[in-house]
């Protein structure tokens, strides 16, 4: 059995998106900045995509800036908000300990440039405390940036509540919604979102396309200088095919959203229940406030990379927050932030289901993970120390 279960990393492009992309590449190859018909036809494709995306998140088309993906959107949103703040003498930014590195590393860069950053901790269930966030806002706070859904443990953050607090306090609110857009309803007005980042390949669109929403009136800082594309805020000839395919993929995802949610939630819960039968393990993140496709576990006494490679041998593509999978020394900052100690965080597994996942696949996943964990524990000196009582179990 072959199961692609790493949809939080990327998704397979949908037929609709692929066909849109091919049609654009073949038939709308013009440069949207050219004034002749072929160019203007490509421009039309671009603006159709902008309108469609804007309508889905309840924004105005002029508030959508196309980017190369989520990381670029995150970078531009943060640097723009920082510039705006700096001009007013406000140099404090609030974020969380569980953000994506596109946010965390940009914040590090801003710190080097004189900004002060408060990284809020999260509760054990991986959710930010909105009251704590409210208390952290200072006179000189220029930006709050909190992800909508965490990419590693799938927890859904109280974005609407945070948006309300920020609006009340007059602080800009950005959300990295890369894992959320196309998977849960987003209404930038109802949620008081000032800026938002999204990426096409997380909702069955192509890689290399994404967008940023920036509320009207927010002055953007350019990352790329050049031509007057995107109202002069993002230079470079537009990725027309990628953008059109992104809009098509988003429309399709949103249309199927409710049905996919209803179908996947019981499959997710079934896998969680099945994996919990493994001794000395723990589910990462809140049981209810999580994406319908997201499962994250820590297993004591084993290491995640070997777990992944053995699952790959069984045809399952999954992911881990182990340091060994990334070449880093420390395991996932997200797992550490929810209180998993190093020893346990190394033994993590993330399964993110595709929209077409089945119960039959769920059974195979449960069976395979059980087998692999037991096998690795069979020759783990850590497991031996734990079971012989030499060391105490953490989970």
């Amino acid at each position, binding site marked *: 059995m072959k199961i692609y279960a790493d949809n939080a990393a990327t998704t397979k492009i949908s037929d609709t998106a692929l066909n849109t992309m091919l049609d654009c590449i073949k038939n709308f190859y013009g440069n949207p900045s050219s004034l002749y018909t072929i160019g203007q036809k490509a421009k039309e494709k671009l603006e159709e995509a902008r309108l469609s995306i804007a309508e889905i998140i309840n924004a105005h088309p002029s508030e959508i800036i196309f980017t190369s993906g989520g990381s670029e959107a995150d970078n531009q949103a943060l640097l723009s908000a920082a510039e705006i703040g700096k001009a007013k003498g406000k140099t404090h930014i609030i974020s969380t300990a569980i953000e994506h590195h596109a946010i965390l590393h940009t914040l590090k860069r801003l710190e080097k440039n004189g900004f002060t950053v408060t990284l809020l901790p999260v509760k054990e269930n991986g959710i930010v405390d909105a009251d704590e966030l409210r208390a952290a806002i200072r006179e000189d706070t220029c930006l709050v940036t909190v992800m909508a859904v965490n990419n590693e443990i799938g927890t859904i953050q109280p974005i609407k509540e945070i948006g309300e607090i920020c609006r009340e306090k007059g602080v800009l609110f950005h959300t990295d919604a890369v894992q959320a857009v196309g998977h849960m309803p987003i209404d930038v007005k109802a949620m008081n979102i000032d800026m938002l980042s999204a990426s096409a390949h997380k909702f069955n669109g192509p890689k290399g396309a994404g967008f940023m929403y920036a509320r009207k009136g927010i002055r953007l800082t350019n990352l790329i200088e050049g031509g007057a594309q995107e109202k002069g805020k993002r230079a470079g000839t537009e990725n027309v095919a990628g953008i059109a395919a992104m809009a098509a993929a988003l429309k399709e995802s949103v249309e199927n959203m409710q049905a996919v949610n209803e179908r996947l939630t019981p499959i997710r819960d079934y896998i969680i229940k099945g994996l919990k039968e493994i001794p000395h393990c723990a589910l990462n993140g809140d049981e209810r406030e999580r994406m319908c496709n997201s499962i994250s576990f820590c297993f004591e006494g084993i290491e995640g990379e*070997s777990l992944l490679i053995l699952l790959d041998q069984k045809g399952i593509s999954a992911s881990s927050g*182990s340091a*060994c999978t990334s070449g880093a020394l420390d395991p996932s900052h997200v797992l550490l932030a929810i209180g998993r100690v*190093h*020893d346990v965080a190394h033994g993590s597994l993330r399964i993110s289901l595709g929209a077409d996942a089945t119960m039959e696949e769920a059974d195979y996943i449960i069976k395979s993970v059980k087998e692999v964990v037991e096998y690795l524990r069979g020759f*783990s*000196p850590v497991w031996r120390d734990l079971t012989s009582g030499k060391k105490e179990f953490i989970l």
Partner: protein
Amino acid sequence: MALYSDKVMDHFLNPRNVGIIEDADGVGEVGNAKCGDIMKMYLKIEDDIIKDVKFETFGCASAIASSSMATEMIKGQPLEQADQLTNKAVAEALDGLPGYKMHCSVLAQEAIHEAIKNYEEKGENKNE
């Protein structure tokens, strides 16, 4: 391109000399769970020759493969020679390891070294 060579995959999927030796003459444990790698080597020694060797490893595929390969390389070898096994030799025997995984082969070298040291220390204590 695959992450690991066929040799690494073979030793990871079919590790040689896995397990423990209850009455081992020397035991060496290196690494720590915090870093995500622990290797434990058990040696059975007769007439300064490694008669048997077993290992247990908590770690990634290359750590498990390095342990497995290292045990094969020292089994039947005189102690002195086994103690000179380098991490480079282990990595080469595996047809190479990705750069950031080289420390796995270092652990294998160190685990053997610690096990031999443990054996020698026991011997010294007996003589006292």
